[in-house]
């Protein structure tokens, strides 16, 4: 439970707010690369502001605020040229640094052009996504997290959700919900719709724990029948501050991305890489994306798949959940820890420091800890459940993805018989990160 003022501060995304200033220190995916290949300029909403994003014929990206500095017409309807984006109304042109390089109806050699500079952000392409940074200089580096650069077969599911991103992030430090929302509730829905929910999701939590680390919070759990030696505890998986969660298992590596579009809209993305042991690389000229269902034709949430259940819970909490009348328990201690982390980063930014996870060192790849044997379900079983019971079942690539996992399993068997090592994709390899002797913050036995 928080005061209304604390809730307001926590959930803000706008410029000039404490949290909005923290959020402006990070890079965000704002388009699929294929979108700008199809049409080179796009209107983008991010952190409650609108921008024009474009890609020049030679592949150079730019992003500037949507209103033209001249008379505020939308630059998102602009003309893309090699040297910048030209306003459709009177032809003023801005380059990727925001410099006004042409004012067709004005006199040359005046300072007028210098007065109307657009505030340009930075844009890069990585892993089939177009990323933007719209905060203050100097911009940090775009973090090359493992999933975006590792070998594997990719797809991206997405949906725009009518709720604030913080309640989605609080779900990322809430291990117990899996047992009910994806266990008991899944069973209940399955019984009515005629399918069998995956058993591994309903295992009882014996213990949960959370550790702050350099990119966020590592979440750990011990499920019934497991011990501290299982991946779910020893490795866990991280909330990647401030808007991601890295998950996976069974040769699947995923970043769950929750982009704060505005205060009550979040772009939810499931960036998934299928890279089981024995994977035989497939050509992918572009990363396919697909929209996942949120509501059915009656306006009810679609709850017969894992992420649909999460979405139902997040959205039904309200556009901005009322934390003044919530009732957290001890099992919600991860939520309190995340709120502390948000507050810490607000203070850091006010003190002129970089917030958590800001990357300024050049790097090839940042490997995030993530369990491989999720829910000690056995890798292959988890992969099958993931395909059948998660958002992947809506992917246009579903058949190919199944083949990826089945042929990889066959390949491993053949390699084993032949006494040769199987191909293991690089990156995304979870490592044990729990310091010996570290005690959990919560013991829910």
């Amino acid at each position, binding site marked *: 439970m*928080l*005061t209304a003022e604390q809730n307001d501060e926590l959930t803000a995304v706008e410029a000039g707010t404490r949290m909005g200033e923290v959020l402006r220190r990070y890079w965000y995916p704002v388009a699929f690369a294929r979108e700008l290949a199809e049409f080179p300029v796009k209107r983008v909403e991010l952190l409650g502001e609108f921008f024009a994003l474009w890609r020049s014929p030679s592949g150079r990206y730019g992003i500037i605020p949507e209103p033209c500095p001249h008379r505020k017409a939308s630059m998102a309807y602009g003309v893309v040229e090699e040297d910048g984006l030209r306003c459709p109304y009177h032809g003023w042109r801005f380059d990727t640094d925001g410099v006004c390089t042409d004012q067709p109806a004005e006199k040359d050699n005046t300072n007028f052009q210098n007065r109307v500079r657009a505030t340009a952000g930075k844009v890069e392409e990585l892993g089939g996504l177009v990323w933007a940074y719209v905060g203050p200089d100097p911009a940090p580096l775009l973090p090359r997290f493992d999933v975006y650069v590792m070998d594997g077969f990719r797809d991206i599911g997405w949906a725009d959700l009518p709720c604030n991103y913080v309640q989605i992030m609080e779900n990322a430090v809430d291990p117990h919900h899996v047992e009910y929302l994806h266990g008991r509730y899944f069973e209940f829905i399955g019984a009515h719709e005629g399918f069998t929910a995956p058993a591994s999701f309903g295992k009882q939590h014996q213990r949960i724990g959370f550790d702050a680390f350099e990119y966020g919070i590592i979440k750990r759990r011990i499920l019934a029948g497991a011990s501290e030696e299982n991946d779910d505890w020893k490795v866990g998986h991280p909330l990647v501050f401030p808007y991601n969660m890295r998950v996976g298992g069974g040769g699947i590596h995923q970043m769950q991305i929750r982009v704060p579009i505005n205060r009550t809209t979040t772009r939810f993305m499931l960036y998934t890489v299928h890279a089981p042991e024995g994977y035989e690389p497939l050509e992918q000229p572009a990363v396919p994306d697909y929209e996942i269902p949120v509501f059915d034709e009656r306006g009810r949430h679609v709850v017969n798949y894992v992420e649909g259940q999460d979405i139902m819970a997040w959205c039904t909490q309200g556009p901005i959940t009322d934390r*003044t*009348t919530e009732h*957290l328990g*001890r099992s*919600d201690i991860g939520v309190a820890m995340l*709120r*502390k982390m948000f*507050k810490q980063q607000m203070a850091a930014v006010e003190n002129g420091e970089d917030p958590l996870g800001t990357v300024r060192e050049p790097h090839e790849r940042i490997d995030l800890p993530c369990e491989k044997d999720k829910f000690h379900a056995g890798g292959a079983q988890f992969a099958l459940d993931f395909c059948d019971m998660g958002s992947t079942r809506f992917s246009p690539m579903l058949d190919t993805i199944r083949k990826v996992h089945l042929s990889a399993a066959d390949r491993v068997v053949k390699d084993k018989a032949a006494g040769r090592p199987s191909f293991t994709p690089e990156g995304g390899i979870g490592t044990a990160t729990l310091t010996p002797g570290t005690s959990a913050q919560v013991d829910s036995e």
Partner: protein
Amino acid sequence: MIGDRRFAADADAHRRDQPRYCPACATALDLASEFWEGDERRFYCWCASCEWTGEVTTTGATALGHEPEH
């Protein structure tokens, strides 16, 4: 403004009872997130000034002990 009137009393109690100052350095606390453990109300607190993190529990006027099994 309270959205859910069923728990207006809890919201009022939170506003009234939340710890305001850091037990370590006496600066205004930055965070006091309330949760329950059985009948006990607890506040997970953080001080931006000295980085103190801890839980504060309200007890009321009555001090309760426990009796070992015998």
